[in-house]
C-alpha cells in the first residue's frame, strides 16, 4: 500500500561510530523446524539451528532469538510481503507477526565498538566469545536490545522504538571517552 503519509522513525544522530540503519521489514516467526524450512524457501535465507547465530544473504537475514523464535530482517525492502511467507508456510502451525515498526536498528562500529557497548552490556564481546554472526537478546543498561555482530568491528543493535532516545543517549555519553566532543 502506498501512502503519502510521512514515515517518521525515532531520531538517532549519526556520528563516526553510530548510525541509524534504514527502514526495514521485521518479522517474528515462531514455530517448529517445518515452518522454518518452508519459510526459508521463499525468504532466501535458511535458519540457524545453532543458538544465538544469525544467517544472512544479501539484504536479508534470519536471527535466532530463541529455540522457536526467529527475527527475519530485510534491510532493503520496507514492505517485504508477509503474505508470500504465510502462503509458503501454509497450514504448518506457526506464528508470523509483522513488527517492522516495533524497533529500529542502529549500527555501532569502529575500534571502540566493544568498549562502548560494554559500557552497558554485560556480555563478553571479545571476538573469541562473541564471534561474527553471533546474535542475542540482551541488555544495555536498563534497555533490552538485540545485539548482532556482523563484522569484527561492527554491531547491529535492534532497539524497541521508545527506548531509542535512551539507548542512543547512553551510548553517546559512554562514547565521549573515546570520541571527545
Amino acid at each position, binding site marked *: 500500500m502506498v501512502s503519502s503519509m510521512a514515515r517518521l522513525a525515532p531520531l538517532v544522530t549519526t556520528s563516526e561510530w553510530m548510525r541509524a540503519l534504514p527502514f526495514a521489514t521485521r518479522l*517474528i516467526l515462531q514455530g517448529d523446524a517445518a515452518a522454518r524450512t518452508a519459510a526459508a524457501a521463499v525468504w532466501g535465507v535458511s535458519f540457524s539451528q545453532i543458538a544465538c547465530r544469525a544467517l544472512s544473504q544479501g539484504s536479508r537475514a534470519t536471527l535466532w532469538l530463541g529455540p522457536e523464535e526467529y527475527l527475519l530482517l530485510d534491510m532493503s525492502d520496507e514492505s517485504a510481503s508477509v503474505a508470500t511467507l504465510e502462503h509458503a508456510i501454509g497450514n504448518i502451525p506457526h506464528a508470523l507477526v509483522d513488527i517492522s515498526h516495533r524497533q529500529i536498528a542502529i549500527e555501532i562500529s569502529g575500534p571502540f565498538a566493544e568498549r562502548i557497548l560494554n559500557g552497558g552490556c554485560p556480555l563478553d564481546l571479545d571476538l573469541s566469545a562473541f564471534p561474527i554472526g553471533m546474535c542475542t537478546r540482551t541488555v544495555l543498561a536498563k534497555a533490552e536490545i538485540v545485539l548482532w555482530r556482523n563484522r569484527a568491528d561492527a554491531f547491529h543493535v535492534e532497539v524497541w522504538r521508545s*527506548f531509542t532516545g535512551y539507548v542512543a543517549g547512553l551510548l553517546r555519553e559512554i562514547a565521549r571517552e573515546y570520541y571527545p566532543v
Partner: protein
Amino acid sequence: MSFRVSKGGHIDRSRSLKFTFDGKTYAGFVGDTLASALLANGVHLVARSFKYHRPRGILAAGSEEPNALITVYRDAARYTPNLRATQVELYHGLQAKSQNRWPSLRTDFGRINDQLSAFFPAGFYYKTFMWPRKAWKAVYEPIIRRAAGLGVAPTQADPDRYAQRYAHCDVLVVGSGPAGIAAAMSAASTGARVILCDENSQFGGGLLSEADHSATRIDGLMIRHWIAQAIQKLKENSRVTLLTRTTAFGYFPHNFVALSERVTDHLENPDLHLVRERLWQIRATSVILATGAIERPLVFPGNDRPGVMLAGAASTYLNRYGVKTGSRAVVVTSGDAAYTTALDLHAAGVVIDAIADLRTAPVGAWVEAAQSAGIKIIAGATVLDTQGNVRVRRIDLGQVVSGTVVKLQPINCDLVLMSGGYTPSVHLFSQSRGKVEWSDTVKSFVPGRSAECERSVGACRGIYDLSEVLTDGAATGLALASKTPISVQSASFTVKAMPIDTNPYVGALPQPDSQSSSKAFVDWQHDVTTRDLALATREGFRSIEHVKRYTTTGMATDQGKTSNLNALAIVAQTLGVPIPQVGLTTFRMPYTPTTFGAFAGISRGDLFDPVRTTATHEWAQARGAVFENVALWKRARYFPRANEDMHAAVARECLAVRHSCGIFDATTLGKIEIVGPDAAEFLNRMYVNSWSNLNVGRSRYGILLREDGFINDDGVIARLAADRFHVTTTTGGAARVLGTMEDYRQTEWPDLKVWLTSTTEHWAVIAVQGPRSRDVLQPLTDIDMSASAMPHMSVALGAICGVPTRLFRVSFTGEMGFEVNVPADYGRAIWEAIFAAGQFHGITEYGTEAMHVLRAEKGYIIIGQDTDGTVTPDDAGLTWAIGKNKLDFVGKRSLERASMKTATRKQLVGLRTPNGEVLEEGAQVTLRTGQKPPMALVGHVTSSYFSAVLGYPIALALIGGGRARLGQTLYVPMPNGDIKVEVTAPVFYDTPGARING
C-alpha cells in the same frame, strides 16, 4: 624545615608542586602523596580523632591509614571528604583541609571529649542518650553528629562524569607486588586474557618501598629495574589490561569483582572528556589475590600521638618518596622487619636512639647489622607510655625482666616506629566467602578453603620470603590460566636478599601492674582502646561480632585493616580462650570507600531511567501538554490553554468528548499478538472470559486473574482470524502479562500450538472518542464504519489515509469511540490528519486525566488504582465477564474458596458528597462519625474527581459489603473533620449505556 633527602625514591625532584593544607601553602614533588609531601614539610599533625578529638598524625603509607582522613576540594561541588592523605596523589594547586576540628587543628575545642572520656566508654550512646526518648532526635543526635564524625558532604551536585564498564578475563590479578606481577606474567605467558590492577599509582606494591641502595636482586636486577622490565613485557601483550589507581573493592559471587578506577583525581586540569572514575565490573574465570599484608601496629599507652607510626611506613616515605619522618627515632619491633627501617633511616641521617626489640634475645644478621651501625638494641622491651601534645617528644620504655616489667630511662625523640609483624590482607578473600583459618606461625588468619575459583598468593596468605612469594605467584598464575594443577616447577627466580624473621606479635604489649592512665589504642579510626574491649567483655559480650558492634572496632571505612588482629587477641586474652575460638568478623565491602558517583555511573539525569515516548510526543509538547510518568512512559496528562489550570483544562477536555469528539494517544497500552491453531484455547485457559465463541471481527473486554483469584490485568481482545488475536493490556502490565502468559504456555501447556509476540511498540494507537468520532474518521478510511458494519466491540482491517490500520470500535469513555492502530512510524502523520479532519467537528486533544474522569463517570476500573491485588472480579462488579460454562481458567479454583465469597468483602461502589467535597484518593471510610483513632475502617476511596458533565464530584471506593450499602451514609475522616458520603452505584453517567451504541 624540609625533611626531604637529596636523592633517591620514585619522585621527580625536577618538578615542584605547590599545594595547600588548611590554607597554608607547601611544596612537594611529582610522585608525592599528600601524606609524603606534608611529612616532607615536617607536618605530622593532620587530623583530630573520631570520638576524643585527639591530635593524630600519619600512621601508615597506604590504604590502611586510619588517622589521616582529610578533605580535598577543587570547588564547592568537587569536594571529597574522608580521603586518606596517604592515597591522595599530589598535583599543582591541590587544596586539602583537615576535618573534625573547631576552630583549628591545633586548637580544637572538641578535645574536651578526651578529658571527659570517662563519660564516653564503649557503647556510650546506647547508654547515655536513651532518655527522654524525644531528646534523641532533637538534642542528642545533632550534637553527637556534629562533635563526633568525619568530614562534611559537598554542598553542590557532583559535576563530574563517571563511567562503568563490564569486562571479562581469564585471570584477574589483584595487587601488583612481587606475587601479583609474577602471577600476571606467568598467566599472560599462556595467552590468557589477564587483568592486573593495583590501588597505587605505580605497579610494584611493597617492592616500591625497597631502598635504592638495597642489595636485594631479582634475576640479577635491581628491584626497580625488575618491576619496569616485567611491566613493560605485560604492556606489550595485547591480551593484558593493566590498571593502576584501581581498587578491587568488592568480591561478588561467581568471580564478579568490582574495581574502582580513579581516572582524574590526580590531575591538575583534567581533560573534560575524561571521566572522574570508572567502575569496572569484571567477570573472571579465575581470580588471583595478591593483596599483600599490612604491618601490624603495637598496642601500648600513648601509641596514637603524631610521630608514632608504622616502621614500614617510615621505610616507604624514605625510600619511595625521599622523606625522613623525623630526626630522632626509637624503633619498637617484634621482629627483623623494622631493622631494615632503622638501618635505612640511620643511613639517611636520622638518629636511631634505640631499637626496642620485644624478643628476649634477638639474634641474626639484621641484629648484627644494626649493632655494627652502632644502634643500641634493647631486648625484652615494652612501651609504657609516650609524651607530647601534637607530636611525640618522649617515649617511656620498659623491659620485661623475669616476668616483671621494669621502667627504663625515658628517651626523648620525635619519631616512634612500631612493627608487630604483618597481617595478611584477607579482606577480598573473606568477601568471596572463602573460609579463613588461624595460622600459629603467621599469628593471623590466612585463606583456607576457597568458595570461588580463586587463589591467594604471597603475603596475603602469610608467605613473606621474596623468593617464595615470586614462586608462589608464578606457579599459581600458570596453573589458573592453563587449568593445570599447581606445580612448583612452573617458574623460577634468582633472588638475592637477606632472610627476615617477621616474628609477629599480637595483642597489647606487657604493662606493669600500676598501669599508665594513657589510652592504648587498638582501632585508631574509631578511637577504640584496650579498655573499651575489656569493658565490652566485662559487660558480657562474648561473640566477636557483638564486641565489634558494641565498641565499633574494625567497622566502617577502615574494616579493621590495622586493628582486627590486636582486637581479637585482646578479647581472647580477656576471655581466656585461644584466638581461633574468638573467630574473625566478616569483612565487608567496599575495601576502601567508593564514591556514589562510581555506583551511579551514567545513570543520572536524563539517563537515570529510560524515558519512553510515543510518536505524538513532540506534537503534544508543542501543544503545551503537561506530562505525567506512567511506568517508564511520558504521557500527556492534560493540554492547558491560555490561563487554564488543570481543573479547567480537564473539564473542557471531558466536555468535548461528551459533546463532540476528543483525540487521545493510547499507544502505551500493551499489545500482544497471540497466534496459532490453539490461540482461542490458550485464551480460554488464561482469561476468565469465553473466547471460542468470539467471532472474527469482534472484540471482548477480558479479565486476567492471578492463580490466587485476584485481578491481575484487563484489556480488550479482538479476534482478527480464527487463529489470530490482538490482545491489549494495561500500560504498566504489558511486560508482566506477557511473562505470565509465556510461563503458562511454556511450562504448563507446552502441547498447545500457540505463540505470543509483543506488538506494543509496532502500533501507534489513536483513540477518537465522542458522538462525532465516526464523522471525523469515516472520510479518512476505506472501512465501512456504519453502526451496522461496525457495532460497538468490533474490529476491521483496512487503510486510513493510505496507511494500513486495525480499526477498533471500542470505548473507555462511555461514548461512541474508535481506536485507530497504525504502524508506529506513521503515528504522527495519521494523528495530525485526524486532528485536521476533526477541526470541523470541534475535535479536542485530551490527556490521561480527562481519560480517568471519563471512565470513572462510567464506573470503569483502572487496574492498580481501583484494584490492589486483593480484588476479585465479583468485588469489582465484573462477575458478568466470567465464562459461565468454563471448567477452568487461571484463578478459577481460587474464586471457589469460602473467603472469596463472604458478603463482607470490599466491593466497588460509588460515593457522592452531599456537601460537594472532592474526596482524597486513598482516604479511609468509616461507618460512624466523630470517632477517634483507632477506629474501625470499612473501606477506602480509590478514585475521585470533579465531574464536569455532572456538575458535582464523584468517587469510586472499595467498601466492605458495599453493594448492600447503596443509599447509606458513611464518613471519610479527614484532619479537618469527617466528610459525609453517600454510597451509590459505581456508574454515574448514562447508566443505561445508550451513548456507546450511537
